[in-house]
């Protein structure tokens, strides 16, 4: 049974070292998801976490300023002012009323400083209302 013990040790070393690396990576990159409505309720250390917040970009709120892009995210009736300071160009899907996911941290004044912005890929379109104003209800034939 000594052979199997050797294999056991080999396997244990690999699994343990990978687990350790995973734990390191987890600590380095963990990010909390919050909804916009949850943010004011956070306090203490949880305010300092790296977090991701999702919402809809408010129409007409995108302002491109030197070194940053400001916009307002809306969700559950609440709004959040966001400053994007990352170096990557904003995705093409990032437009008024698009679904966006921002990653970064809260600033002291309750605004959000985003380092990454993802905008939801608009693969799915809902059929737009027709010109005559009639609502569209798909039905199966």
């Amino acid at each position: 049974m000594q052979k199997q013990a050797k294999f056991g040790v080999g396997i244990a070393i690999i699994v343990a070292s990978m687990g350790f690396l995973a734990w390191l990576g987890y600590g380095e990159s963990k990010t909390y998801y919050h909804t916009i409505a949850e943010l004011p309720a956070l306090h203490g250390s949880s305010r300092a976490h790296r977090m991701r917040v999702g919402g809809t970009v408010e129409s007409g709120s995108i302002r491109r300023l030197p070194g940053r892009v400001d916009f307002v995210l809306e969700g559950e009736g609440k709004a959040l002012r966001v400053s994007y300071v990352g170096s990557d160009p904003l995705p093409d899907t990032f437009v008024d009323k698009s679904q966006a996911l921002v990653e970064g941290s809260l600033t002291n004044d309750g605004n959000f400083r985003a380092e990454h912005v993802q905008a939801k890929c608009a693969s799915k379109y809902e059929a737009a209302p027709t010109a005559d104003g009639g609502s569209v209800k798909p039905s199966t034939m």
Partner: protein
Amino acid sequence: MDVFGSFALLLAFICAAYALVGGIAAILTRHPLLIKSARQAGIATCGLIFLATGSLVYLFFSDSYWVSYVVAHSNHDLSTFYKVAALWSGQEGSLLFWSFLLAIYVFSVLLVYRNKNGELMPYVGVVLAGVQIFFLTLNNFVASPFKVLAAPGANGAMEIFTRADGNGLTPLLQYPEMVIHPPNLYSGYTGFTIPFAFALGALLARYPGEKWIHLTRKWTMIAWCFQTVGILLGAHWAYAVLGWGGYWGWDPVENASLLPWLTGTAFLHSVMMQEKRGMMKVWNVWLVFCTFFLCILGTLLTRSGVVSSVHAFAQSSIGNWFVGFLLLAITVCLVAYVKNRDYLKSENQLDSMISRESSFLFNNLILLVSCIAVLSGTLFPVFSEWFSGSRISVGAPFFNKVNIPIGLLLLFLTGVGPLLAWRKTSAESLKRNFGWPLLMGLLAGGVFFSAGVREFFSLFCLLLCVFVTTTIGMEFFRGAKVIRARTGTSLVSSAVELTMRNTRRYGGYIVHMGMVLIFVGLSGAAFNRDVQKEMPPGGTMDIGPYKLLLQSSDSKAEPNYTAQRMIVEVWRDHKPLMMLYPERRFFQSNEQSGTMVAIYSTLREDLYVVYAGQSPETERPVIHAFLNPLVKWIWFGGVVVVLGTIVTLLPNRRAVLVLTGATEPASRSHPASQPLVPSVALKESHD
């Protein structure tokens, strides 16, 4: 045509149900007519799915803007090429496309084996029908692609109406790769259904021997190859279209495509242990089961928006169906396993730490660890919400920390594994096989280090790449030398001859070589650089050895979009080198824009230029340039992997054909009249 399509789908569902129920009855009664009818119902199911898919394609080509799926994903000006892609650009269509590709596989399997393996095929047919029923349920009752637009008419009844034009295809998908990437990936996802059905069928039937492995090897290779190509095309699309300068972001959907690839790769290797030594039977069966589950999970992640992703379609209830199917499939597999596990008894045990078996074992172990790491990282938000109430996600550092060492370990095993002997390897053969490669690797490491490569992982990766390349090269060289001695042909044609005599082994080496090239490309990522600058016409920017000069800009109107194009001249060593035209496209039909990255690609590095848009204050164009070393090697490696896979699928050429034309007389130990047939080359060898 929409009515025709719906009916075809409904009939397909009924046929699939018959194939399942009739198939079970056939297994129980062993009535030959029942067996035949169940098989034919399976074939009919596939034919009907082909018809339904054809009618949806027809609806796109005939601009039928009363079908809501067509309205949502196409418009008049969309080119023919992309009208095909529109088929799978949305939820309903892509699910139909899933059924379609699965139907191609099922159709081929049922036809190829119609008069063979009579004991096994009814079971396989039942499993395949079960999977088809699930997708046909979605196609028919949950996400029908044939829904029409209707509104209450004058008399209050619902009336169909037609829109003048469609919403158009999302610009991100209007790129040539997007026409071939999804079919490849889906062919991979669906293709793993075949080995799954054979494994489960063999288990249920208690089918003797390893025949199911021989039967499915080619199907698994095909699925694996499609999956590999699909992943690489997806990476290339992300690289060339999304304009962020990278090709892999550990996005949930990317991860979803990687997961079955990892277990599928493990499966391809560990089945050899079963074929050669009758080991790992339980492990193999579960690997192929898990690969299938991960394919379904991958489709679930893409379709349901369970985990936020740029790719994910809108939140929808379709996820529940997938979860239900996944649970059902896992239950069936568990029950089948528990009932028949005595059939999977291993015939041998591991003998030595330094043997082919143990290299396969470790290969499997680390592929699985990688798979678990990627899976848990991807699903972390879901699990953390269950356990702690807060949704926590992990990012690239998590995935990289685990997967970079795993990748390097795998690369090392790629070089070492194939040269270790079964059972036990002697110290003598270790020295003979690994002396040169080790020397070359260390030498190359020294060269790269002095050339300024100081990033540990990249340096180590390049060192390993040279090591593995040498081991592979030596294998070809040794074999070719033997053939050359016999036939007198050149070394190259001897190597070709060698490959054709044992396609599986040498094709496998070619696939390994492709993976080495991919790793060379990946190692370059540590040295990526980028510069972003606002540039007036006439402005310049320096990046690495290049100087970019923005000459001017223009705009051109195409039928489906307007492009704003930057005309950038690239200089190197004070000499103009070439022109690059990064552009932004504005699509009228859905008021969206897309980037077209301009890439000057060499083996050494890619110069990657993005027109990032106009600065809002000065209205000057902003150019974002990246210098990404070695990226081209990744795509090149992908091509080599495909070629290698094709070689492994070829039948072995019989050595006797060559030796009849041999110029050299046969060796003394054989009478000249007898053809010289090395026994190794004649029987199918499974290395």
